[in-house]
């Protein structure tokens, strides 16, 4: 019976091709918009997720806090409270910590031959590479001996290498940082952008000891102080718990009274990114909601056309009833017609949406991700729209009085 209704529906849709096409267009645009917009949103989400991966979601940063001198509060890092000894204490005493790597950062002009480049100089220890999940691409990393001996060696980030050496091999070359010659011993792998859009590859890594002595200088207050500690938590350990333990350890080491504020900052990078991921999720929902409005408008278009169709075909309905069609036969016929209309529109809309999503990907260089569940959802949604908006006209048709309908002019 449904198969027959389908044949009847297809025939009556064929009769008025232009009208059918225009009605389908509404659903097509709606479905295509939903799919394209959701793929844009999902793409943004995927990018954030990748950033979390690249940063290492199990990383906690400990940084020097702000000072409070006679009520004047200076900014973050104005006080150099975090030390190398804090780093080793964290690694030693907090069991969840895999490695804690102290580092200090500054900016300097770097010269190679007749080229120069201003970049971030990061003084690090041998643990830094493990803490930041940052393997060396070519050459060797900074070793414990380099830190102990304060050797003048440097590893270049991809961006820095590109700017100083172009495509030439930097290994073994001598660069000058603040007029101090350093031998390039390695090239870091590409890290990409940080969560806040900073180019993480625009950097030079040198041993922490060398950095203090030759490049960044030593803090007057505390020779052991460092800018920050990168703390990597073992996989499967609870981040929040580890953070609390680190905070307690640092407060204890810094001899802070319970009433006193922390003189350091702990930042859990994955939290920052999770916030971003959350907001891009919200964006996806928002885009989908806006696109759904056009789907709704398409549904109303179907209802409109079905109502016109019922009126136009009143005599046909009367005849069908006269020769034995029951109310539910008429209901089925018009419902199947509406669903067919919306499903064909939906399928074409899916094709358009997938095409549109790929076009956005290629032309706007905005990464899009096609989620199969979004496609399934759009398909199901268009069928539901056919049923929902087709039901009223179909019921109207099925409730016609055969005598009146047969006489309808």
């Amino acid at each position, binding site marked *: 019976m449904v198969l027959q209704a389908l044949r009847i529906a297809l025939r009556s849709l064929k009769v008025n091709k232009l009208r059918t096409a225009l009605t389908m267009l509404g659903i097509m645009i709606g479905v295509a918009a939903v799919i394209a917009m959701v793929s844009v949103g999902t793409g943004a989400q995927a990018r954030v997720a990748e950033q979390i991966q690249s940063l290492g979601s199990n990383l906690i940063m400990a940084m020097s806090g702000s000072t409070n001198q006679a009520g004047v509060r200076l900014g973050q890092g104005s006080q150099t409270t975090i030390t190398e000894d804090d780093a080793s204490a964290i690694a030693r005493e907090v069991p969840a910590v895999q490695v804690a790597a102290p580092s200090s950062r500054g900016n300097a002009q770097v010269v190679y031959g007749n080229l120069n480049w201003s970049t971030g100089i990061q003084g690090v220890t041998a643990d830094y590479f493990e803490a930041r999940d940052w393997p060396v691409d070519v050459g060797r990393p900074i070793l414990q001996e380099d830190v102990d001996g304060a050797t003048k060696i440097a590893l270049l980030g991809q961006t820095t290498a590109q700017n100083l050496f172009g495509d030439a091999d930097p290994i073994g070359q001598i660069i000058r940082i603040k007029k101090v010659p350093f031998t390039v011993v390695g090239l870091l792998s590409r890290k990409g952008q940080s969560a806040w859009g900073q180019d993480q590859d625009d950097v030079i890594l040198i041993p922490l000891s060398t950095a203090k002595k030759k490049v960044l200088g030593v803090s007057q207050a505390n020779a052991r102080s460092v800018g920050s500690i990168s703390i990597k938590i073992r996989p499967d350990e609870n981040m929040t718990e580890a953070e609390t333990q680190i905070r307690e350890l640092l407060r204890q080491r810094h001899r802070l009274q319970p009433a006193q504020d922390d003189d350091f900052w702990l930042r859990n990078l994955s939290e920052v990114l999770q916030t971003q991921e959350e907001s891009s999720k919200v964006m996806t929902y928002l885009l989908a909601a806006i696109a759904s409005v056009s789907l709704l408008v398409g549904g109303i278009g179907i209802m409109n056309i079905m109502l016109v169709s019922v009126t136009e075909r009143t005599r046909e309905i009367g005849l069908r009833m006269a020769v034995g*069609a029951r109310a539910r036969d008429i209901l089925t016929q018009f419902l199947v017609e509406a669903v067919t209309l919306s499903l064909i529109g939906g399928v074409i809309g899916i094709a358009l949406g997938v095409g549109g999503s790929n076009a956005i990907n290629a032309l706007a260089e905005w990464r899009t991700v096609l989620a199969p569940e979004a496609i399934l959802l759009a398909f199901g949604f268009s069928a539901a729209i056919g049923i929902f908006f087709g039901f009223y006209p179909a019921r109207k048709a099925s409730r016609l009085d055969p005598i009146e309908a047969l006489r309808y002019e």
Partner: protein
Amino acid sequence: MAIIATEDLSKDYHLGPHTVHALRGVSVSIEAGEFVAVMGPSGSGKSTFMNLLGCLDRPSSGRYWLDGQDVARLSRDQLATVRNTKIGFVFQMFNLLARTSALENVELPLLYGGISSRERRERARARLGAVGLADREHHHPSQLSGGQQQRVAIARALVNDPAVILADEPTGNLDTRTSVEILALLQRLNRDGLTIVLVTHESDIATYAGRRLVFRDGRLRSDEHVTPLDAAEALKSLPEEEEAVA
């Protein structure tokens, strides 16, 4: 046995505070194989009577047996089934589905009877042959003349082997010669045993029926058996249709 039997059949319509008595108690019995003409001016109740006979409407009071079945109190869906199996309709406006072939038009009642598509096709072909349109089965209504369209409609009425054919002004939209051709076809079917009830307001059309029921003011005024004219004979005296009419 009576194919159609009514007893004190009445129908009232309520229009606001007014009640219109469209039919005021009609008792009539029609035997199998009869050819009955129902006549009367507009407002006489003949259309209401036909709607009740056709199970398109339910009486306000009275009883109605169709082919032995009491159908006066059936539900809408049950009436649809009765129409599907017991009654064949022929209308003044033909009421064929546009852009649908003659064959598929004839199949339509079988579609709602749950009959397999092969049997539908076979039966529809046979009925189209019986009305002389075997060579037009793939034509659409717009490609057929008025007389041919009405033949398709008659084939459609015949396809479910009904107990009775109800024809409502079947010649109202046809010229004289085509009208007589249609009547000749109905007479031929009647001679083969088909019961036919025909509504008309033209007395010369009614002369081809063997029994005349005349309605006035909702009541059956006269019920007389007559000797019908033979439409096939009448055709011979009518001039051949001019080809130029198209």
